[in-house]
């Protein structure tokens, strides 16, 4: 037999398989990250709606009395919305306006995350 037989060595094959699997893994990982981003987007939308709903409810509470903001229900509180979103809101200030801080805590795969939304209620 002259020289080495033509063909791939085991090492070459292993390297090729490795490169191929790295490529496939990258594809799989990208679809996973797209799913994660879709999930985040969905969650942020829901958080925004929960927070704005809370602001609207506080506004309704403020409008109960004339002049506004005298209602006993216009106080800080905590509630749990759908999908285990926890909303905490604080009402502070006196006089012609109230400061509202709504903090929404969401359970995620990496532990709870919070979003904070600030607003002001007109009490005149």
């Amino acid at each position, binding site marked *: 037999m002259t020289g080495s037989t033509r063909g791939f060595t085991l090492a070459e094959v292993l390297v090729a398989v490795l490169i191929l699997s790295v490529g496939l893994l990258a*594809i799989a990982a990208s*679809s996973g990250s797209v*799913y994660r981003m879709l999930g985040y987007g969905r969650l942020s*939308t829901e958080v925004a*709606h929960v927070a*704005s709903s809370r602001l*609207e409810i506080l506004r*309704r509470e403020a409008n109960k009395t004339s002049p506004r903001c005298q209602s006993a229900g216009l106080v800080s509180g905590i509630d749990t919305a759908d999908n285990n979103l926890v909303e905490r809101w604080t009402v502070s200030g006196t006089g012609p306006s109230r400061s509202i801080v709504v903090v929404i805590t969401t359970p995620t795969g990496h532990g709870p995350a919070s979003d904070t939304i600030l607003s002001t209620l007109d009490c005149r």
Partner: protein
Amino acid sequence: MRRRAGFTLVELLMGLIIMGIVAAALTKVFLSQQRLTVTQVEQASMQANVRTGTLILANELREIGNNVTGGNDIKTFTSTSLTYRAMRSVALACGITSGGVRIRQNPIYGARPITAGRDSMLLFVEHGLGTTGDDEWVRLPITGITVSTCLTPDSAPAYRLATSGLPAASEVRLDAPVRTYEIMQVAPVVQGGHNWLGARSVSGGEALTPVAGPITVAGLSFSYLDENGNSTGTRSNIRSIRIVLRGQTDWNVRPGNGLVGPSQPLLDSLVTTVTLRNMRLP
């Protein structure tokens, strides 16, 4: 004897089998990736549609009022349909003459021209000058629009909105605000085999057309809440409206990772609450 170059049948078959296995695996990866992409695109599109639908509804309904002078902005309300007055433009009155209100051509704040029949107006009437207690918005139909001028000595370019049931000219201040509105309805509508969030101008004689969706069957629901957040069926008690919009994908897609489970539409829903802004305080 020297061996001839080439492959034996066994080598060839082995090669073909291995190539087949590799090709099959690659095709499978490719196809599942393709399905996954379709699922993800559909899901993203559905989420955008539901988000858009709730934003449209919240923004439309935020502006309406209740118990205001000049009538109630909510015309009819059910758990799936709402008919309301939608404000379309604001202008300034510069002359009340027999059967017509003249408004300045400039400024008129609105997204489209005022249309006779489709639009009506609310005219701010001062009545007595010394008090605000008797001020009111008077609802008037718009039966025609012609180019005109403001009353002398102003004589600026104006439109004359023909109407009926006008108050006395002396009770309306110069540059009193005029708001024009049309009657709108939001309700589900079926088109092309899907349910949609639909809207139409009732006063414009339109049919319901889709504005966002697709939504599920019974995918739109309204609850009407009083000042304590309890459900109410009395129009004058409505203070806020809770909107639930349930969306679905246009097509059946593979759920989850795109590989398992039967093909079916993906569903998602959003809930939002909007408090009516233009309420007269108690």
